[in-house]
């Protein structure tokens, strides 16, 4: 456990020490706040714009910061940093778990910071915030878990750039996997079952995207998702991330460094 936390701390601080990160945070919060200036251009929808832009940027920041893991493992392998560490009494599983925890904590820190800035902007714009605001954030963290596990998986056998591209593609396409389920629902018999099974095997990030529901429920009488939905979708994220991460560990155990 001590080894895992040491690796996680090192991974976290390696990225958190970057000064450009803090500049980026401030710029993003300014960007969210600037949406208030678009009231006329959007025919009075500036509050909706603030909420939608804020949630979109929070999701992007979470995904972007967790993608570093896809780059982190191959980079440390290439630079022989991992080789040196793994020649010590540190298991490969411990190394990978440490990297995963570090990257996830880094992403979590970024999400917390952006969210705090985002809440301040909402309060300044007279947007009433309820506890429902936690629902899309929980979904974003669920997405982060899946992406971190996926990045770890790709990082175990791909080099830096392909691993990041592959993780980005999962982020991009993972939000549209419901197209397969829709296709399945138009079919009968074996075709339906096969497509539904394929749908289930893919990382379905759309199940964790409740940003639209939150925004919709804030500015219209439409109902948002219940807490039970958020709970079940996060349980799915934990399960998927665990399975994906164990796969990454098994691949990494067999790899020549």
């Amino acid at each position, binding site marked *: 456990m001590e080894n895992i936390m040491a690796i996680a701390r090192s991974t976290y601080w390696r990225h958190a020490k970057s000064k450009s990160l803090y500049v980026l945070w401030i710029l993003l919060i300014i960007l969210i706040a600037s949406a208030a200036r678009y009231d006329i251009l959007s025919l009075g929808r500036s509050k909706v714009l603030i909420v939608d832009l804020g949630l979109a940027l929070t999701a992007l920041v979470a995904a972007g910061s967790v993608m570093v893991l896809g780059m982190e493992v191959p980079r440390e392998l290439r630079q*022989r940093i991992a080789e040196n560490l793994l020649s010590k009494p540190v298991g490969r599983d411990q190394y990978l778990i440490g990297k995963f925890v570090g990257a996830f904590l880094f992403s979590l820190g970024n999400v917390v910071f952006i969210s705090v800035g985002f809440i301040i902007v909402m309060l300044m714009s007279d947007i009433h915030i309820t506890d429902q605001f936690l629902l899309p954030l929980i979904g974003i963290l669920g997405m982060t878990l899946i992406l971190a596990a996926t990045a770890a998986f790709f990082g175990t056998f791909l080099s830096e750039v392909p691993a990041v591209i592959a993780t980005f593609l999962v982020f991009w396409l993972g939000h549209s996997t419901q197209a397969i389920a829709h296709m399945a629902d138009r079919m009968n018999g074996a075709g339906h079952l096969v497509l539904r099974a394929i749908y289930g095997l893919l990382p379905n990030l759309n199940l964790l995207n409740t940003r639209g529901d939150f925004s919709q429920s804030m500015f219209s009488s439409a109902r948002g998702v219940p807490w039970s939905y958020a709970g079940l979708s996060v349980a799915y994220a934990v399960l998927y991330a665990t399975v994906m991460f164990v796969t990454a560990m098994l691949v990494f155990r067999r790899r020549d460094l």
Partner: protein
Amino acid sequence: MGNDTVNVIETQDLSKVYNGGWFRRAKAPSLDKLNLTVPAGKIFGFLGPNGAGKSTTIKILLGLVFPSSGSATILGQPITNDEIRSRIGYLPENPAFPTHLRAGEFLRQMAKVHKVAGDEIESRVKSCLNLVGIADRADSAIKEFSRGMLQRLGIAQALVNQPELVILDEPLNGLDPYGRRDLKRIFLDLKAQKRTVFFSSHILSDAEDLCDHLTIMNKGQRIADGDTKHLLAEAGGMNLEDYFFQKVDEDNRRRFGAEMAAASSQSIRREASESAAN
């Protein structure tokens, strides 16, 4: 500091074939049935030209690369035992370390990984930095280090756990003459403490000065092995550099001859079968 085992490293028919290419079909043999014995408390030189299989052997011993066949023990334990590595120090070839850390911070982290007792960590870190001559740079960021300083830091981290066996892959690379002198002194100190130093190198003059025992590798096979003085005396008192070239050239000629013989016998067989068919 005593070693319970007489030989700290033993390998039996250790082989490694790397699989490359898109479908991992391309075979690149790197190690061919290597039998190696490293006696305890000695300075052991592991020599060979590029591609001889030195780094592969070291990586197999440290569990970084998996052997295709054969077996090996280190400090009397199978190499699959992760815990044995707490008694080993290792310096990789061209080492790199987390650049966001300071030298002292990094060594403390390595000491913790080796489960060095909390109250001992500071003294160990200081003594290791002193030993490699960079004590004044303990608070400097690693990213500011030159190649030679990185090499010194690498040696320090390999010694932070006071290992029974130190494995160093090309430790003299990147060091200036002062660094090489310091490193030689460290090797001799370790030997005096009955620790084993196993290192690979291209710098044959230093190896000749330091090594009690050496193995010369070529194309994945051991081509010479024994007590340094004894080997050189047997070879008519030549120096290690001449001995090395003689052995490697001989082996290359032998391999070339064998390949030619195999090729010509193949061609004779083909011609014979063609004429029989006609």
